Structures are given as structure tokens and as C-alpha cells.
């Protein structure tokens, strides 16, 4: 089969569409997260979501999203919106919440094995590398991704200047009357929603990579916030498309292939940045 034949398949089309949208949302949010020293929040929140899923499975909730989403949003708000005033800050608080949630979730699943799910280590692995594989998406999931992406992109465009002001200098923004608490809250909620949904689709490993790599690559070369934001979005979309096509053609795991594409672009942009600065 040639590449063109692959593109005719509906599951490849779905994977491309969802991959591109998730990559786009993650990279837009990634710029502010990386600059605020919250690069690991994607990883942290997906561990929280895993812990919540374990609890949902143990208590026997049929739709675990009812528990997972609120818990993850709560943790995101605690980390991002309240975190700046808390006693444990930044990376330490992310590490604490993430490792704690992972351990508690795993322990609960061991103590009270949910019926019908004997393979616990298999479950952990799916969480890391993607539950429903991106190549077996249902149409509901595709629509959900589309709606969510429209919301995230609209939020980013309309709040672009506010996100910039709050990221660059939160105390100045607050002192001159910007509603920084509200903006931080909104950013935290959006990030939590994106991470939970993306984790279901592509796994927590990939979501972290999608948050950090495009933003960091763009920062090597571009010198304005606008330039970095646009470039990060383009890199992320490009790498998602390239990764999915290469994976489909060669039978490699999709998530890892996208991450490798992101690493390659980071290398290229670092080189360009280095050559420019000389």
C-alpha cells in the first residue's frame, strides 16, 4: 500500500484529524506552561486522572469521566491558580500530586481489583501510552475532540493578550487591575480538560511531549510571544501529521513516533538558533 492508499482509510483520517487538533491545543497551552515553569503539569495531571480512574473503577462507576474530570480540574486549579501563594511551589507541588495520585491509584487497584479487569499492569501501560489507540477512534470521540479544540483555540485567541500579561508578569497585571485570578482559573480548567481528553486518546507520555517540545523549539528561534505561539502551533501540527503518517506506513507506535518527530524538530531549531546567535 502506498501513502495515498492509507489516506483513503477512514480510521487514518480520524487519527490525523484528532492528532492534529490535540497537538494544536497542547502546543498553544504549552507556551504559557513552559514559561511558567510548569512543563511537567501534563504528566502530573494525567497521573492524577489515572488515580481518579482507579477510584472510579473500585467504587464501580460506569462512566469514570464523572469523577476523573472534576478531580483533575480541581488539581489543576490547586496547582496553577492557587499554587503561586502556596507554601509548596511549582515543580515540587506538581511532583507531589502526580506521584501521590499514581501510587494511591495503583495501590487501590491492587487492594480492590475491579471485576473484569485482571491485568493491572496492562491498565497502567494504557494510561501512559494511550487508552483507546488513536487508530481506533469512535465518531463520538472525534466530534468531542473537534468541539473541544474549537473552544481551546477560541479561548486562546480571545484571551491571548491576557495570557501574555499574566504569564510575563503576574504581579504587575494584578496591580494594574487585570483579573489575574480569573484568567489563571480559566487557564487551569482548560488545561485539565485538554489533558484528560488527550490522555484518553493518545496517552500521558505523548501529551507531555506535545506540551513542551513545540514551545521549546519555537523559543530557540522566535523572539516575540506572538511568533513563538504561532510557530509552536505549526511545529506541533506538522509533527503530528508526519508522525501519524510514518507510523501508519511503518507500523510503529503512533505516540512514540510523533514524539520522535518533535525531538527531531527541536534539534533542528536548536541548531538554527545556535547559528543565528553566532
Amino acid at each position: 500500500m502506498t501513502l495515498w492508499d492509507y489516506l483513503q482509510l477512514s480510521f487514518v483520517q480520524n487519527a490525523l484529524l484528532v492528532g492534529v487538533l490535540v497537538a494544536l491545543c497542547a502546543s498553544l497551552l504549552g507556551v504559557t506552561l513552559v514559561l511558567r515553569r510548569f512543563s511537567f503539569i501534563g504528566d502530573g495531571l494525567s497521573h492524577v486522572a489515572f488515580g481518579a480512574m482507579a477510584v472510579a473503577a473500585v467504587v464501580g462507576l460506569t462512566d469514570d469521566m464523572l469523577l476523573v474530570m472534576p478531580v483533575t480540574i480541581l488539581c489543576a486549579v490547586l496547582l496553577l491558580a492557587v499554587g503561586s501563594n502556596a507554601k509548596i511551589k511549582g515543580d515540587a507541588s506538581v511532583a507531589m500530586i502526580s506521584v501521590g495520585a499514581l501510587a494511591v491509584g495503583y495501590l487501590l487497584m491492587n487492594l480492590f481489583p475491579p471485576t473484569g479487569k485482571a491485568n493491572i499492569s496492562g491498565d497502567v501501560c494504557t494510561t501512559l501510552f494511550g487508552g483507546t489507540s488513536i487508530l481506533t477512534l469512535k465518531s463520538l470521540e472525534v466530534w468531542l475532540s473537534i468541539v473541544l479544540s474549537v473552544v481551546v483555540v477560541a479561548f486562546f485567541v480571545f484571551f491571548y493578550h491576557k495570557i501574555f500579561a499574566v504569564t510575563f508578569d503576574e504581579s504587575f497585571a494584578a496591580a494594574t487591575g487585570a483579573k489575574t485570578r480569573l484568567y489563571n482559573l480559566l487557564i487551569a480548567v482548560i488545561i485539565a480538560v485538554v489533558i484528560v481528553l488527550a490522555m484518553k486518546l493518545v496517552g500521558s507520555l505523548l501529551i507531555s511531549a506535545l506540551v513542551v517540545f513545540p514551545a521549546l523549539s519555537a523559543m530557540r528561534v522566535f523572539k516575540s510571544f506572538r511568533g513563538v505561539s504561532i510557530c509552536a502551533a505549526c511545529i506541533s501540527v506538522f509533527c503530528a501529521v508526519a508522525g501519524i503518517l510514518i507510523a501508519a506506513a511503518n507500523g510503529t507506535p503512533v505516540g512514540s513516533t510523533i514524539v520522535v518527530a518533535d525531538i527531531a524538530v527541536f534539534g533542528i531549531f536548536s541548531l538554527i538558533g545556535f547559528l543565528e546567535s553566532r
Partner: protein
Amino acid sequence: MALLSCQDLSLGYEGKPILEHISFEVNPGDYLCIVGENGSGKSTLMKTILGLIHPLKGKVLTGDGLRQNEIGYLPQQTVVQRDFPASVYEIVLSGCQGRQGLRPFYSKEDKELAWMNIQRMEIEPLARRCYRELSGGQQQRVLLARALCATRKLLLLDEPVAGLDPRVTAEMYQLISDLNRRDGITVVMISHDLEAALRYATHILHIGARIYCGPVEDYLRSETGVHYLGRGGYRP
């Protein structure tokens, strides 16, 4: 009427007071320097005036038509800012954010104001440059231009010359002094540099174990001033 008045303020964190019974006024055209030892609560006082921290007791009042969100602020640099990818123009323009409310984009007036303040700070050639590539003195000019976008009346400066070399420090003091004398902007500045404070300021607020607030000339004769200067280290 006073632009800013603090009435019997007690400040601190988590209910533990650092400073108690502070009362002072800032009038239009004043140049007030806040001096005192490290840890005496200078930055906390400034954050309280800005409404970033709630006072434990007492009140901060603005007057003379000044609103709480019309105070220009020059904070100390944070770690995040040192390698921030943003152009000078983007940063200066963000000074207008406080008046935006929920409006998503800047108006033409906002953009004109940003350009005017870029010219005022003589950083026009740098407008498209990246903030992280600038020298310390240039970065302070950018942040001052941003502060000027937020206010027409009152500037609060938290150690504006920290980490600058002597020549750039002198330029910075001259710039601030010009804003105060020529443009009539009231200045409240935290300073460790007592020599400069005595030279440029009209009023001194000394906080710590002893508190003094009043004109510079009287400070030199006051018990607090004599005590502080007499211990050496800051003597001109």
C-alpha cells in the same frame, strides 16, 4: 487632597505582622523614597499599596481622582522574565491590560500610548528586539515604559537600579527624576541607595524599628536619620 494615604497600616503575612502603625500621605508631585534595612517590609508595604496583599489592619486610600488600577508599577525582575521570548513592543503594550476588562484586543489609543512611552524612554530602536537580549538598563527602561502605560499620575518603583552598573544607574535616576519634575508624575521608590535617595527625593519614609516620614531635610536631622546614617555604610 493626597494622591495616596495610608492610615494606621499593619502589614504582614498569615496574620503575623512585620510592620505596624504606618501612616503617611503622598501628595501630587512628591518623590518619596522608602528606605530601611533588609526584611523591614519595604516590598510588603509596596505590595499592600498596590492591593496585591491585604493589610492586617488599617487602610490604603487613593484620592485626587486616582483609581486603584491607575498606579504604574515597576516590580523587581523575576526569574521567568530573564529568558522570556517577547518583543519590547509586546511588553510595553501589556501595560494597558489593566484597563482592558474583558475586551480581547487592544485599541488604537492603547497602541499609540505604547509607542509614545517607547519614545519617551528612548527605546524606539529596540521596539522589535527580544526582551531577553537586552542589557539590564534597557530592560528597566522597557518595564518603566510599560508602567507609564498603566498610569499618568503615580509610579511605584521597587528597587529600579538593582544590579545595574554605576553609569546606567545614574541614567536611570535621571530618567525617573525627569518624569517627576518635567512630567509631574508622582514617584514612590524603594531604594537601598541612601545617597541617591537623599539627592533626588523630596520625602523619605524610613521603616523598621524606628519609623520616620517627612521631607528629606528634616530626615537628616531626625533621630532615625542620624541613627541610620551614623552607623555608616550608607554615608555619602
